[in-house]
């Protein structure tokens, strides 16, 4: 018979107020298998743990029960304690007499009886517990980062600088992401490119980073430590190995197309490098607009290329990589202004979104940093900025706050005033949310020094003036004075809601991670596990999770990288062995367990034709145990016999 020790915790008064601890000890002590039973105020404290360790040695205990709080809090504490006294850690059981007993009852007599019952059932379970060893899983010491914006780059650099290899996959032809489109950054107004390019260059040259731009994730298989990823490399129609990035091809290309990088405010060629500081600085051919691809003629780029790097026959290719961890950093987009009817459904050229205004401000933008409005190139003298367009608007937008708009709108208005001294900027806002170091001061400075007119209220309609084609009439309300406001503006800038990038939900599906209803990737715990997803080994960072600004994104990226490094730096992964197993004597190979397993942890062995368990994937949920028609599926230390004895004890 196993010699069992029972330790009952008072948890201050949390337990002992409702449960008569002395009575419990007295009753439990009468059981033949209980070799030792004591109580203590705080079992989890150091003296409490010492008490357990001493008892194991002195009383030669073979199993330990601590009757205290829920196992989610202190199971590890007590397992470690008994292991340090030489006992197998799986000879420990936790009897929850707090959440499931003392906290939910008032009658001391009844609660005491229930506490005794709970402990007795756990004794029944413990009697049949096997001594188990942790499962060790090898780890591929390589990380995959999806997304080459500031967030993905920061995570990739942190991991690479710790000595691990990183594969960075970016769907466009250059890294840099949204930040590369920005002009200057709040609240310090440093130029976005100036602080970004050192990072892009470092990523581009890092010996530990394998950069795969113009590529997308095709398939993901495997599990923590052992992911297998298939990456699709889109055809650039340029041999990047040969290409020197001289740019002659773009110069000669006769086709002008609106540029995605310039948010349709400028043009690019059909063979193009998206922006001057692109990394890698290699062009791609946009086959939809290329004359050669449309008509079979032209080939000017091929003729001009001095090294013969143009390859019209390039096909898409696939690369397979094994990685141990994955970081998702797929960024954000802006809600399309075409969705907002009352602001003209995007039909007025001079109603632009925040990113378009960034391009107007940018020295490398379509107007070389001069603020000229898109319709006629005039310098706008009255500019209206509208915040919360599609954000905080459950009726026809998103219910959430996009977080970055208050700050970037203040920055926009301020930079506009710096560029056009005699201009007037108006900002319509609901609230000004400027939490952050130096943020509130920045907004106040913009309002006071630059005399920007902040109007608290929403804009109801934007339309072309019927008498003056060049003016946009903005109707709004100032809720502080209760007055209706009408402004004849030259340009309107809409702070559109930040939304997940296109394809976010699809990628989440491939990675088997969850998203919220809008498509932002869900974190494992909103407070305590903000950089992990619920799938072990997959981390998230940046605006893929929710809208956030650059400092917060960089901090989260480093956080995600640190969590990834925690895994990569271990020689092997140690996993709990309390999972499913197969009794091969009984298994008929029917395959029902394979179907019911939600974690892909079950498959039929090719030769043996019997079910087997992938120990790294099994979460120990028990679905296969209840589904198995021949009782061949076993849950280690939760066998049917154990559970039946526990039930018998309380009935």
């Amino acid at each position, binding site marked *: 018979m196993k010699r069992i020790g029972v330790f009952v915790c008072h948890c201050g008064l949390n337990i002992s107020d409702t449960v008569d601890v002395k009575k419990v000890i007295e009753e439990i002590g009468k059981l033949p298998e209980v070799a030792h039973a004591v109580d203590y105020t705080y079992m989890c404290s150091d003296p409490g743990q010492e008490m357990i360790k001493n008892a194991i040695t002195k009383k030669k205990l073979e199993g330990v029960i601590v009757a205290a709080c829920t196992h989610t809090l202190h199971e590890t504490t007590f397992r470690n304690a008994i292991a340090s006294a030489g006992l197998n850690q799986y000879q420990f059981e936790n009897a929850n007499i707090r959440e499931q007993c003392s906290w939910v009852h008032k009658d001391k007599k009844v609660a005491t009886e229930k506490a005794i019952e709970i402990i007795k059932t756990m004794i029944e379970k413990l009697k049949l517990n096997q001594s188990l060893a942790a499962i060790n899983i090898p780890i591929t010491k390589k990380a995959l980062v999806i997304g080459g914006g500031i967030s993905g780059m920061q995570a990739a650099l942190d991991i690479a600088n710790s000595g691990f290899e990183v594969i960075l996959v970016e769907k466009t032809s250059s890294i840099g992401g949204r930040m590369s489109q920005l002009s200057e950054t709040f609240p310090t107004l440093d130029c976005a490119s100036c602080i970004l390019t050192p990072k892009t260059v470092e990523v581009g040259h890092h010996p530990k980073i394998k950069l795969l731009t113009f590529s997308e994730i095709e398939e993901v298989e495997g599990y923590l430590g052992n992911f297998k990823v298939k990456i699709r490399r889109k055809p650039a129609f340029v041999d990047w190995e040969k290409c020197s990035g001289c740019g002659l091809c773009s110069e000669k290309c006769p086709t002008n197309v609106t540029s995605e990088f310039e948010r349709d405010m400028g043009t690019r060629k059909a063979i193009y490098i998206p922006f001057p500081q692109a990394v890698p600085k290699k062009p791609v051919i946009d086959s939809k607009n290329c004359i050669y691809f449309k008509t079979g003629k032209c080939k000017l780029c091929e003729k001009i290329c001095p090294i013969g790097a143009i390859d019209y026959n390039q096909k898409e290719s696939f690369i397979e990589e094994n990685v141990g961890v994955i970081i998702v950093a797929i960024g954000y987009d802006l809600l399309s202004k075409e969705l907002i009817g009352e602001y003209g459904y995007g039909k007025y050229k001079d109603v632009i979104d925040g990113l378009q205004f960034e391009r107007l401000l940018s020295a490398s933008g379509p107007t070389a940093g001069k603020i000229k409005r898109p319709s006629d190139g005039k310098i706008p003298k009255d500019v209206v900025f509208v915040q919360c367009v599609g954000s905080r608007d459950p009726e026809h937008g998103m219910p959430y706050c996009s977080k970055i708009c208050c700050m970037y709108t203040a920055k926009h208005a301020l930079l506009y005033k710096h560029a056009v001294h005699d201009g007037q900027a108006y900002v319509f806002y609901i609230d000004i949310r400027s939490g952050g170091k130096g943020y509130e001061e920045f907004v106040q400075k913009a309002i006071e020094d630059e005399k920007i007119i902040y109007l608290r209220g929403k804009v109801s*309609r934007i339309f072309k003036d*019927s008498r003056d084609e060049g003016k946009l009439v903005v109707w709004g309300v100032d809720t502080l004075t209760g007055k209706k406001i009408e402004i004849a503006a030259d340009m309107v800038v809409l702070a559109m809601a930040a939304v997940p990038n296109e394809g976010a939900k699809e990628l989440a599906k491939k990675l088997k991670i969850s998203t919220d209803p809008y498509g932002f990737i869900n974190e494992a715990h909103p407070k305590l596990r903000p950089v992990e997803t619920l799938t072990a080994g997959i981390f998230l960072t940046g605006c893929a999770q929710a809208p956030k600004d650059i400092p917060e994104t960089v901090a989260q990226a480093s956080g995600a990288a640190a969590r990834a490094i925690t895994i990569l730096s271990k020689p092997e992964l140690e996993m709990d062995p309390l999972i499913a197993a197969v009794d091969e004597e009984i298994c008929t190979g029917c395959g029902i367990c394979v179907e019911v397993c939600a974690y892909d942890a079950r498959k039929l062995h090719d030769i043996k034709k019997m079910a087997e368990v992938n120990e790294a994937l099994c979460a120990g949920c028990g679905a296969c145990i209840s589904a198995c028609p021949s009782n061949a599926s076993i849950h280690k230390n939760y066998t049917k016999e154990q559970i039946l004895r526990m039930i018998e004890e309380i009935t």
Partner: protein
Amino acid sequence: MDLYYYPGCTLKTTAKNFEIPALESIEKLGHKMIELPRWNCCGTVHSLAADDLIHQLAPVRTLIRISETGSDKVVTLCAMCYNTLKQTNKIMLEDAEKRDRINNFLDEEKDYSGNVTVLHLLEFLRDEVGFDVIKQRIKRPLNGLKLSPYYGCLLLRPEGIGIDDIETPRVIEDFIEALGGKAVESPFNNECCGSYHTVNDIEPVVERAKMIIDDMDNRGADGIVVGCPLCFFNLDYRQKDVKSSYNDFNFKPIFYFTQLLAIALGLDEKICDFDEHFVDPRPLLFSKKLVLGGQKRK
């Protein structure tokens, strides 16, 4: 199947000249609209109060009259009737609790479950007749007459009830172009006309009418097309009050869409009874050779 239409009070009294052109035009287009027997008040303004079921009874009774004919749809000519009947029908279709209470209360009537489709005549013309068919049938194209559509609220709101997109509706534009006119777009085509304020406080109505008409005038419209009798009243009759406050105001003729349809189909303009309009549209129509002389200024 017979096509029933629900006229409502206005079309049978002050707006007879919108009803007759509608009936005759539809007949000309090869359909026949039968007036719903034993119809009653549509309920006028749809009550949005969640516990105010008594105001839903009148439209429910009308909907029951329709289902008794064996028809599964009804055409309305007035935007108010359209909106009230359609919103109430939605309640009867989707809200089981309210449906049961109303059906229990109306114990002398058969139970009703929202199975009638409520259409505005513009919808019927667009979706069932087809503007392309109308285009082929017209005898007197509007000769590029520049007209601004005006929708008001009840044809468009709320979402799911309206006959077109709330912010950029196209149906009247397409209708005008099918008749050979030129649609002049105005951002004020879904602004409020002042609605029932016109009964006891005309000042806001005068201001709104002036704003809407001036904007359409500035954009080059010769006339305005409406699909709601109340909008018509506020935009047409109230021009008298606009003029008395603003001397430089230019009168602008207002058309009910059925009148333009009748004229384009070559029907006698007398059925439109333009004498009933405050701003006589005949000089404009005459200038485009759409009517013979004869004009009157009130």
